């Protein structure tokens, strides 16, 4: 086998990186919600899907407005955050006293409901959003071209990661959130409104999923089924990186992004099997993930 063209490898690596950033956005919300609320949110992929559909909706509403795509991204992701907050506040919070299985199945009920909701509102056809005008071009890399929009995503991903790290580690609410992950009863008895904190955390997690969906909308066809497709990959990311671990999620996303991107080239048959094997192996050897910490309880 001849050695592949280096520029081709770079492009492949960059596409893997773009995908990794989307995975990171979604998985970090999933991991945050699990870390604090101890709920494995199956509906996270649905919130992502909703982000994409809502971006399509807002783009069509803001036709001819300057920066319509960016406004649509902001409105769509915030709408998803509000929907997430409402779901947590009025529904999910009532199930915390029950078994974990009930919470898990409730989020699965949401998957079913939201997927049909999207079908009823937007139909079953493929929808698309065009890339924002200022990022329509492509950048020459060696002797190939790579879309500017993807480069923007590759830069934005770490920026959001950094922002979140700062919020979690440098602000008062961030400290509450980290404390809630360790001992929610103690935090409550110290006078913090834990219920409100949980709603906030769920809304932030939903916002991240919505943002992921909003930003991915120019790159993929918006179709029913994109929720189920992404959620398992997001699970793999958080499991490999470590449930509740921030940097682990980033690492997991990078690994899965590259495995997906190169696996298709090297062993197209086995790449899909490989990512599940990776998940199983990590769970068996280090159930708390590559960068996570073992649960105390």
């Amino acid at each position: 086998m001849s050695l592949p063209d280096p520029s081709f490898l770079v492009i492949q690596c960059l596409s893997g990186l773009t995908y990794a950033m989307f995975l990171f956005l979604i998985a970090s919300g999933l991991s945050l919600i699990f870390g604090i609320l101890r709920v494995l949110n199956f509906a996270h992929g649905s919130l992502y899907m909703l982000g994409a559909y809502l971006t399509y909706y807002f783009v069509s509403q803001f036709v001819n407005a300057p920066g319509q795509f960016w406004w649509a991204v902001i409105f769509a992701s915030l709408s998803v955050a509000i929907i997430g907050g409402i779901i947590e506040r009025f529904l999910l919070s009532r199930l915390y006293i029950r078994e974990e299985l009930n919470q898990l199945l409730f989020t699965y009920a949401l998957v079913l409901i939201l997927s049909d909701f999207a079908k009823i509102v937007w139909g079953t056809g493929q929808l698309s959003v065009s890339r924002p005008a200022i990022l329509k071009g492509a950048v020459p890399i060696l002797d190939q071209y790579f879309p500017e929009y993807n480069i923007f995503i590759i830069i934005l991903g770490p920026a959001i990661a950094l922002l979140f790290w700062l919020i979690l580690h440098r602000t008062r609410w961030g400290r509450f959130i980290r404390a809630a992950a360790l001992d929610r009863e103690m935090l409550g008895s110290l006078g913090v409104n834990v219920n409100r904190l949980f709603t906030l955390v769920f809304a932030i997690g939903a916002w991240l999923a919505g943002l992921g969906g909003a930003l991915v909308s120019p790159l993929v066809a918006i179709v029913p089924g994109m929720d189920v497709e992404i959620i398992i990959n997001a699970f793999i990311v958080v499991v490999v990186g470590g449930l509740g671990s921030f940097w682990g999620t980033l690492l997991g996303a990078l690994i899965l992004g590259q495995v997906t991107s190169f696996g298709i080239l090297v062993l197209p048959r086995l790449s899909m099997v490989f990512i599940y094997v990776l998940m199983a192996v990590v769970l068996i050897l280090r159930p708390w993930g590559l960068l996570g910490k073992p649960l105390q309880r």
Partner: protein
Amino acid sequence: MSKENWFLIILVLLLAFLPLTESRFYVFLGTDILIMGLFAVSLNLLLGYTGLVSFGQAAYFGIGAYTCALLMKKGSVAFPLAFAAAAVFGAIAAMIIGFFCIRMTKIYFAMLTLAFSQIVWAIAFKWNSLTGGDTGLIGVNFPAHLDSPIRFFYFTLAVVALSFYVLRKLVNSPFGRILTTIRENPERTEFIGINVKLFQLIAFMISGFFAAIAGALFGIFNHSVFPDFIFWPQSAEVLIMSLLGGIYNFFGPVVGAAVLLYLRMQVTSFTQYWPLILGTILALLLFFFPGGIVGFLKSRQVFTRKNQCS
């Protein structure tokens, strides 16, 4: 004889007369309910009796379906042998997967069972030359002597009734009591000298064995086998069936399967939005009837002779 044994006998007798209605619809629905009921009961051995939330039960269902169909279609193996092989393969797969899974607790157990079932799914999806990949195996015919829907219905009824009989004997035996003890408190069970992991593994294998039987039946019933049999929403659906009927009762999952399949049959005839309805049912169930249908009916009984909801 206990109330539930009578229930089984009456159910079998009633169902035996079902083909007399000469309605292809009811024979079809009856076969479907019996198969999915067995699948749900096999899951409930883990879920309700042992306290293990498996999110990958579809793996054994799929392995059973593929093993039986492949042996019959490509290996030209006689049906009884292919059918037995399917069940054994299901148990062996469950032994290998269970060996790793039982080391995990709670959410990690669920995630690992999910990961393994997705591995099985990905293999079925990608191994085109063997499994037919995305298109699946089409043209899995009724075996000889069972070549009509009614004959196949009676065969299914016999297999499922026998399976229920064996499983009921099992859960009411000392072995079954130990499983329930493990569900209630694994640490204490360990303290009284019981090898908890071993018992969990055996329960996992038995569960895989019966799930594979259900899968093998379903492949023939469906005349085809698809990777979708193993995809994770299938595992979720059987969980919902069990929960809908009630997991703390042996026949609860069968009731759940019957209600769900009947509803789906009715609902899909006038709307395509079945998932919306299923999701709503599930949400209502979780909020208002956490004990499932059977749990709800039992809680309404004022004069229960003894508390059977252990």
